[in-house]
């Protein structure tokens, strides 16, 4: 199943989703397509006109362009997702730095899709690490069972 990770550039979440046998949806894969196929200077800093239009689907015209630009990349990933993992309480350098509003919009879009979601706390001790891994493992194994039932 396709699992959206938030922060979408997190290595920890990307790695855990792959380890437990699912496909992570991340910023890196979305940007790789832009790096390989579109001749723009430096994605994601530079965007195409199509990106701006795509962003309008997820955030209104009055929303700052930075948020629209981010959502142009993340929005289509959320649309494809069958499930999502959110990591909360992380230090400010964790995830895409710069805009808490974009992060809130991402959480809102995930909630609006009504897909299975698990929220874990950023681990700062060994006990928290064990809890985070256990929660993610149980969630991803639960998704396998759900697919079998469907």
């Amino acid at each position, binding site marked *: 199943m396709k699992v959206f990770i938030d922060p979408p550039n997190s*290595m920890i979440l990307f790695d855990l989703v792959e380890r437990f046998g699912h496909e992570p949806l991340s*910023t890196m894969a979305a940007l790789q397509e832009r*790096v*390989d196929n579109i001749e723009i200077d430096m994605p994601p800093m530079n965007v195409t006109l199509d990106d701006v239009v795509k962003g309008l689907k997820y955030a209104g015209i009055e929303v700052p362009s930075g948020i629209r630009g981010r959502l142009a990349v993340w929005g289509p990933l959320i649309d494809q997702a069958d499930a999502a993992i959110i990591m909360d309480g992380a230090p400010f350098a964790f995830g895409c730095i710069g805009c808490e509003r974009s992060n809130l919009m991402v959480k809102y879009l995930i909630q609006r899709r009504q897909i299975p979601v698990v929220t874990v706390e950023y*681990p*700062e001790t060994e006990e*928290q*690490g*064990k809890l985070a*891994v256990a929660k993610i493992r149980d969630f991803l194994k639960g998704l396998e069972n759900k697919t079998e039932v469907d």
Partner: protein
Amino acid sequence: MSEERETRLLMISPSSHITPDQLTRTIHTIGKRVAVKETCYGCLVEGPSATVREIRDEVRKLDPNGIFSKIRAYPCGDPRRCRAQHGTRPGFAQLETEWKALTYIEAGLDASDRGEKVQEIPAKKQLPVTEFKKICEVD
């Protein structure tokens, strides 16, 4: 995801006994046609998607819960990102923060392999004003 090219970043947990040099040499000995670049945190591997994933699985045997990986959008040595060519590294702050947490994730994976049961940690409560006052007041 592009099936043609995959650039994968392999990062070693701070508590692992593996070094970036060992990791790179192991990938070279596997003998697949991929580009490998040793870095301070581990290495970058670039090649066809299926081969890179094969290498990831092979390399993980060195330390199953101590080697982590994710894909990277830009190719190895891209002048827009490579430090040697004065490129920017906007993702480095993120990598540094994650590197610090890898020990805890590794402990979590080890506990998961052992089948250890994990207890829910009670959430931290806010300090009541009365107690805070007691701490602040000097007798």
